[in-house]
């Protein structure tokens, strides 16, 4: 069995306040294998984004990790000095966010922002970095890269901006890409293009992806393995096909029943959508059970 690229072990995270800590994440454990696309799915406030921030060492007070390890390529990121962590970010681990405009500097051309990655992390000259930036724009299928390299972010559409952010993220060939709702702000057809792009590029380079989304459909279309988060807990984890065809946890089942499915009305007529609150009277029991099925063992026993 190969070593996992990222091994999150029993991660606990709290919001520290006078008078005691409020638990935000409880005992989160999951592994991402090299080249694997792993999805974290959950509703607002389930803790999926804060998990990714904890991995990247980007938590702000009053949030803090209170236990567990984040082992990346054999070293515990939580013990890394801030300086070493900064070198790692953008180089070995890269991130893309929902809103590309916030990730881009409006006062600088996109070419310069991509080139910066090569200058800072790989010590290239600006002249060479600019050439590499054009190649990077070309690789994310931005039309006319020679011309676009001189564009400012506001001169581009949302879909193009997100491509620029992807080009920046993949510039240094990271081993892990963390994508936090990267297509949520985009139109359906643009979303499909950006998803295809992430899929193709990461498969070609062997980049592992931690893909965070609230959208079960997006998760199903891009991930090999999925963890379902609810109220700060990872309540179910399984290979994608097994998870969607045979959800075992009550919350996962509720979530899937709450989703209008394309084509379902044609085959089954209009079914009333599942109202999780009426199916599960006491939501507090949901975090008490967990169904973690090992990789490749779709019908294994729960851990």
């Amino acid at each position, binding site marked *: 069995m190969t070593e996992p690229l990222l091994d999150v072990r029993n991660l606990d995270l709290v919001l520290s306040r006078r008078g005691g800590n409020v638990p935000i994440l409880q005992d989160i454990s999951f592994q991402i294998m090299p080249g694997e696309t792993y999805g974290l799915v959950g*509703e*607002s406030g389930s803790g999926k984004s804060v998990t990714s921030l904890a991995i990247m060492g980007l938590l702000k007070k009053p949030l803090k990790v209170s236990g567990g390890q984040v082992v990346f390529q054999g070293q515990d990121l939580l013990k890394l000095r801030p300086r070493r962590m900064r070198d790692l970010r953008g180089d070995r681990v890269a991130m893309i966010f929902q809103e590309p405009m916030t990730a881009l500097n409006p006062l600088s051309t996109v070419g310069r922002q991509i080139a910066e990655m090569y200058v800072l992390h790989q010590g290239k000259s600006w002249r060479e970095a600019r050439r590499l930036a054009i190649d990077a724009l070309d690789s994310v299928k931005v039309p006319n890269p020679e011309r676009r390299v001189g564009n400012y972010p506001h001169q581009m559409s949302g879909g193009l901006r997100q491509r620029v952010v992807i080009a920046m993220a993949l510039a240094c060939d990271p081993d892990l890409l963390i994508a936090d709702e990267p297509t949520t702000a985009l*139109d*359906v*057809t*643009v*979303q*499909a293009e950006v*998803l295809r792009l992430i899929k193709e590029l990461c498969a070609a380079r062997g980049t592992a992806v931690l893909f965070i989304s*609230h*959208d*079960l*459909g*997006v*998760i*199903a*279309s891009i991930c090999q393995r999925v963890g379902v988060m609810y109220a700060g807990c990872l309540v179910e984890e399984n290979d*994608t*096909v097994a998870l*969607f*065809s045979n959800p075992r946890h009550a919350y996962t089942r*509720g*979530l*899937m*029943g*709450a*989703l*209008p*499915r*394309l*084509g*379902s*009305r*044609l085959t089954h007529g*209009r079914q*009333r*959508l*599942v*109202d*999780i*609150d009426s199916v599960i009277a006491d939501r507090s029991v949901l975090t008490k059970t967990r169904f973690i099925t090992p990789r490749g063992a779709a019908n294994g026993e729960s851990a």
Partner: protein
Amino acid sequence: MTGTPLLQIDDLHVRFPIAGGGLLGTGRRLLHAVNGLSLTLEKGECLSIVGESGCGKSTTALTVMGLQEPSSGSVSFRGAPFSGPGAPGRMQRAKAVQIVFQDPYASLNPRQTVHASLAAPLRLHGIRSASEIADRVETMLINVGLTADQARRYPHEFSGGQRQRIGIARALILEPEIVVLDEPVSALDVSIRAQIINLLLDLQEKYGLSYLMISHDLSVVEHMSDRVAVMFFGQIVEEGSWQHIFANPVHPYTRRLIAEIPDPDVAIRARDPAAGFTDVPLPQGRSFAMDGSNTPDVFTAPTPSELVEIDPGHRVRLSLRD
């Protein structure tokens, strides 16, 4: 489909003057937001307009609400003009058509209690008795799944789903016949979305409401609609019953929208749903207008095309014979 439809939109055009064009940047250009849109809405049905950002679906909704004057064309309600000369005043219009917005937080006054937000339209429409107002507000809150005592609270005290319920209550308090739903569940989490969709369908049945829904989410559209119109750059490219659109989409843009919606079942089956659609032979010498493969210039009037009925009630935009 006989008699006068409840709402009829006829050859609607909306153009916006955009400053800054021409050689010196001082010229004015016309942005063609809606180009010759015709639709009817029958009593008790849900008609959805689907399309992506900038296709003109929200402009169409605003025109129906009377918040946007058409450049040409007309909107009529029960056969009487609803826009332009002879249109009813705001007060009458408010009793006919109301709207539920995407973001309930942005559309509720943060300084007004829920009671004040719901009572204001009743008072404006001449109901003086405080007890009658309180009764109607209370009944409406219960109808949308809230409790009577929540009327004294302010919008920030509610969750997103509850706020959307308040938005729905406010739209229904005057008992309108048509409710425009502008992306009513797009901002909500999956479990809350299901509750609001169920509520909207229950209310539609209970009050015989007619919905004009604006949405980009085709799974929600399939679930809720009776008829669907697909818009692309200001024009309807395909229109039909929900069965026509979802079982037998014909226009390439409709097929693309359906194929690219991320749906767990489709993704798991790992096949291209478009491959399952059967091609319909087009009339001799005709081709699809605006097939969605390239972006038309919004500043020039579109090339002539027409909606052709290929099956009763199922219309597709084809280029005019050249």
